[in-house]
């Protein structure tokens, strides 16, 4: 059972454009929602994260929007740059017990054209 569904699978954006990646989750016990960026041959690196008590969090060009009632959250990359070309993963984590691990989406391969 896929607990975190991510879309699109791939995304091509022109330099300077906005990249938007969406995720939906099923488990209402999730209370921490990070986004990771992964370059080829590297491990995932934390980009930005949000908890469900806020609807939006912004860090530089990266913004997470969170809709608790719809159980959806999205990553917006403003002024996308070729250096942003990577695979992006959303994830979710529970608050206690055996739910401490992150559950990842299937990833979005972003290509930013120069």
């Amino acid at each position, binding site marked *: 059972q896929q607990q975190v569904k991510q879309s699109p699978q791939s995304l091509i954006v022109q330099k300077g454009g906005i990249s938007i990646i969406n995720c939906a989750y099923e488990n209402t016990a999730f209370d921490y929602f*990070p986004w990771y960026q992964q370059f080829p041959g590297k*491990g*995932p690196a*934390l980009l930005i994260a949000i908890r469900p008590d806020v609807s939006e969090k912004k860090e530089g060009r990266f913004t997470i929007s969170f809709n608790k009632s719809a159980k959806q959250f999205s990553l917006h990359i403003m002024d996308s740059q070729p250096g942003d070309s990577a695979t992006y*993963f959303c994830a979710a984590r529970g608050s206690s017990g*055996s739910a401490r*691990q*992150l559950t*990842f989406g299937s*990833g979005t391969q972003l290509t930013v054209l120069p």
Partner: protein
Amino acid sequence: GAGVSQSPRYKVAKRGQDVALRCDPISGHVSLFWYQQALGQGPEFLTYFQNEAQLDKSGLPSDRFFAERPEGSVSTLKIQRTQQEDSAVYLCASSLGPDSPLHFGNGTRLTVT
């Protein structure tokens, strides 16, 4: 550096061989996780340690997989009698505590021929 270190970076094993993958977490990090990442997929949870205690091993796909962290720092993931379906990148991640952000290593790419 001060990041999570994994070795070897690449491992080729013949089907049926045993392999051992090592993870050196960031110093002082209490929590340690192992994930398996198949090509083109997101990481999938294998097991979780808090200090030397293995608190969750629900993600280990079979009894051929075994992980340990005897002194609460370095961890080893062992796969016995490797199969082709074990081919993947094995990622280790550590954090200060269970509620802290995870820091990933660059993984070990295992290829079983």
